[in-house]
């Protein structure tokens, strides 16, 4: 989804498009709804969990309808590649009475978005484009049409003379109109070009939609069969008559859809009257899983099993052999980038926690720092897997744990998440004087999704200045008195503030500030600056491993041959030196602060960790 934002970011100035990254999805949906009502076409893009955030406004919008074309692109994430839950957002469309189009590839996605605006205007409704990770994160050649854009001319909300208000008796009237609208949409969907039937007439059929359609097409070709396939592109409201007509002559149908049995249950209901003997293979029959994503092998195996076919493709064997070969591999879990401010913050925090680890509850949140959870073993002192729910949930959950339990509660939240969903929680904390330590990890941008600017960055698309919201001013305004701002790269000097905070009672906030490394690198590149990496002088390294202990920088590894160093006091230091890759080092220098044998304030030849002789270019793919 962030790539949609990034692309609009690049074109918004040239194309007379107004583009904003709203502080959260609910605000975004309200903006595009308002813009549509005000007389302009508008679009919002969000992922499954973002739709949860937007849902309050979303349902009302079904009742009120819209004016100019209004489209919402949303993305479900089968396999939870980057989400906290594996949700099936198709139910939102049905529940909210919205038309939903599901593209099966990027070419169809482009066509559908164009049509979605037309449908939206004809039916005066928000139209949903439902995608999944594998639809979004793929590239192919997409033929383009000429752009027919008109200059921006302000609409007139007054002149449309319409009400977009729903409550009580008005809502009851709107609901009956909404149901009629749904029926008209269903009628239209019966003839939609996005519902495609292919294959040879037989008594076997496959119904599918979205990315699964592609897996079906390749699987049947591999199996040398040509069954009837109904690919559905308008999955809400479902073209019931089309589906019934498809089902009627069949003996069996295989339903191929990722996640919940959304289509399958409808197909079951529809077949009851017209073909009660129909055998339906899908999730309830145990052939497909409601979890994880599909691929050609999964789909092929089910079709083969159901139709009792033989095939030379033994995917299970391939996986078995591969797993055996791979058994020697170490795990590689994503970690903070070299130069990441979070690494410095959590090093200092672990130092401050010391042996109080058992008297601590740690409430995590959504952002790059969520990765602590994946690395719970190496950050075990912090218990980063204690609790993680949803964006901004750290604050309420921390308040609850502190009310109920004796541990000192530590809550972390990033700057974007703070703006997104942290503010109501923080007001509650201040108002109720909750006994929690909050660490706001302020890296100036929305780092995890590609370093988009947020309310605290101070600029918007094309670097245009924007009103910068200072987190400390917000918190002071809310009445937080125990508030410290740390420069997280000055790692050692951050420890006292963390220690004090852990001793305090009442709400305490530490803003741990330092720019996102990737964002900072990009800024450096645009200023023509280079990166000054560090290196370990292994002639004098004491092999104490302090630079690796609790720091976990991907640029630092341990040498594989042991060496000895005889110091000026006649002491011999033996073992494996640490090693900094000058290719990977981002030059934050924090490891040289941690090194007990480096004086980072008065650097000299005697230091173990020294600046490397040659600065290096910033990678051009950042």
């Amino acid at each position, binding site marked *: 989804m962030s790539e949609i934002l990034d692309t609009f970011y690049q074109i918004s100035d040239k194309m007379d498009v107004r583009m904003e990254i709203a502080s959260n999805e609910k605000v975004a949906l309200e903006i595009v709804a308002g813009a549509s009502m005000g007389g302009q076409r508008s679009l919002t893009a969000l992922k499954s969990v973002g739709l949860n955030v937007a849902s309050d406004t979303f349902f009302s919008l079904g009742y009120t309808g819209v004016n100019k074309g209004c489209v919402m692109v949303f993305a479900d994430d089968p396999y939870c590649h980057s989400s906290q839950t594996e949700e099936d957002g198709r139910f939102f469309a049905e529940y909210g009475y919205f038309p939903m189009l599901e593209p099966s590839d990027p070419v169809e996605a482009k066509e559908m978005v164009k049509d979605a605006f037309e449908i939206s205007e004809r039916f005066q409704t928000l139209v949903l484009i439902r995608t999944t990770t594998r639809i979004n994160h*793929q590239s192919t050649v997409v033929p383009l049409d000429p752009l027919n854009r008109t200059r921006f001319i302000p609409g007139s909300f007054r002149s449309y003379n319409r009400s977009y208000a729903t409550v009580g008796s008005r809502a009851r009237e709107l609901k009956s109109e909404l149901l009629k609208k749904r029926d008209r949409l269903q009628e239209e969907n019966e003839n939609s070009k996005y519902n495609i039937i292919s294959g040879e007439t037989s008594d076997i059929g496959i119904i599918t939609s979205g990315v699964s359609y592609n897996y079906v097409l390749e699987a049947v070709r591999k199996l040398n069969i040509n069954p009837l396939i109904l690919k559905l592109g308008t999955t809400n409201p479902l073209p019931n008559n089309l589906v019934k007509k498809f089902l009627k002559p069949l003996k069996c149908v295989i339903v191929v859809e990722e996640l919940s049995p959304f289509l399958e249950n409808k197909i079951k209901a529809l077949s009851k009257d017209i073909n009660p003997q129909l055998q339906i293979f899908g999730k309830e029959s145990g052939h497909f899983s409601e979890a994880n994503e599909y691929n050609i092998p999964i789909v092929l195996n089910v079709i083969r099993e159901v139709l009792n076919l033989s095939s030379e493709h033994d995917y299970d064997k391939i996986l078995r052999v591969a797993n055996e070969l791979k058994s020697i591999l170490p795990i590689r879990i994503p970690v903070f980038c070299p130069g990441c401010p979070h690494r410095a913050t959590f090093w200092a925090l672990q130092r401050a926690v010391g042996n109080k680890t058992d008297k601590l509850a740690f409430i995590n949140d959504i952002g790059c720092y969520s*990765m602590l959870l994946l690395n719970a073993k190496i950050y075990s002192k912090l218990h980063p897997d204690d609790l993680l729910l949803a964006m901004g949930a750290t604050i309420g959950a921390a308040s609850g744990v502190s009310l109920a339990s004796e541990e000192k509660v530590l809550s972390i939240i990033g700057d974007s998440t703070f703006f997104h969903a942290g503010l109501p929680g923080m007001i509650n904390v201040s108002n109720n004087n909750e006994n929690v330590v909050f660490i706001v990890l302020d890296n100036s941008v929305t780092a995890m999704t590609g370093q988009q600017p947020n309310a605290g960055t101070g600029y918007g698309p094309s670097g245009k200045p924007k009103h910068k919201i200072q987190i400390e001013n917000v918190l002071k305004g809310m009445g937080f008195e125990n508030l410290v701002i740390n420069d997280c790269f000055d790692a050692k000097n951050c420890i006292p503030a963390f220690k004090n905070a852990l001793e305090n009672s009442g709400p305490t906030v530490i803003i741990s500030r330092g720019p996102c490394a*990737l964002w900072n690198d990009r800024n450096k590149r645009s200023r023509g600056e280079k990166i000054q990496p560090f290196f370990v002088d292994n002639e004098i390294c004491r092999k104490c491993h302090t630079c690796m202990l609790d720091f*976990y920088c991907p640029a630092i590894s341990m040498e594989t041959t042991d060496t000895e160093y005889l110091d000026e006091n006649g002491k011999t230091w033996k073992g*494996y030196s640490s090693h900094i890759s000058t*290719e990977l080092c981002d030059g934050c220098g924090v490891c040289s602060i941690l090194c007990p044998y480096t004086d980072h304030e008065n650097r000299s030849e005697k230091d173990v960790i020294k600046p490397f002789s040659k600065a290096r270019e910033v990678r051009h*793919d950042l």
Partner: protein
Amino acid sequence: MTYNIMTCGVGGQGLMLVSNIIGLTCAEYGLNIRTAETHGLAQRSGSIYTHIRIGDDVFSPLIPYGEADVLLGMEAIETLRYIEFLKPNGVIILNEYIWQPVQSTFDRVIDSEVKYIEFQDIIEKMKMVTNRIFILNASDLALKAGNPLTSNVILLGALSKIEGFPISKDQLKSMIPNVVPNKAIDANLKAFDIGHNMI
């Protein structure tokens, strides 16, 4: 005919650039192509891959197991990690490079008797499924090209020499100036040739 390439490595090694060059070349010369990329939490320093599929019959963005003609590996551990995608006796083009995960370093800090996995251990496993393994020291070769950041294009050059690869060397090379920054064009073109001549 479908031609499948899987690229693998560690986040930040420039895999996206490789699939962009291949993808844009296919678009330019009218070949049907579909690519899929890793999507995860922060991808830096994590395991990443792209699926690249070329051919008229391609629909799925994902390569089925056992059907990649080539595994193009920027890093050894992460190339073996996707070995199930390789065709029987398919080609592996591998950068002679191993990037030890932080988790392994953590294990060694706790117990210095623990050893890192070695490049040769990985090659031995790969040899059990194919004998067409081309090993290139892309970092050294990139230095020869004049820019240490061109290791990815070294491997792309090598790929262009593999029998059956559906894009000609010149077509692929001509796309490079459109994709890399101006000041890096010369080094990348040189890197491409160096890689091409290594196979």
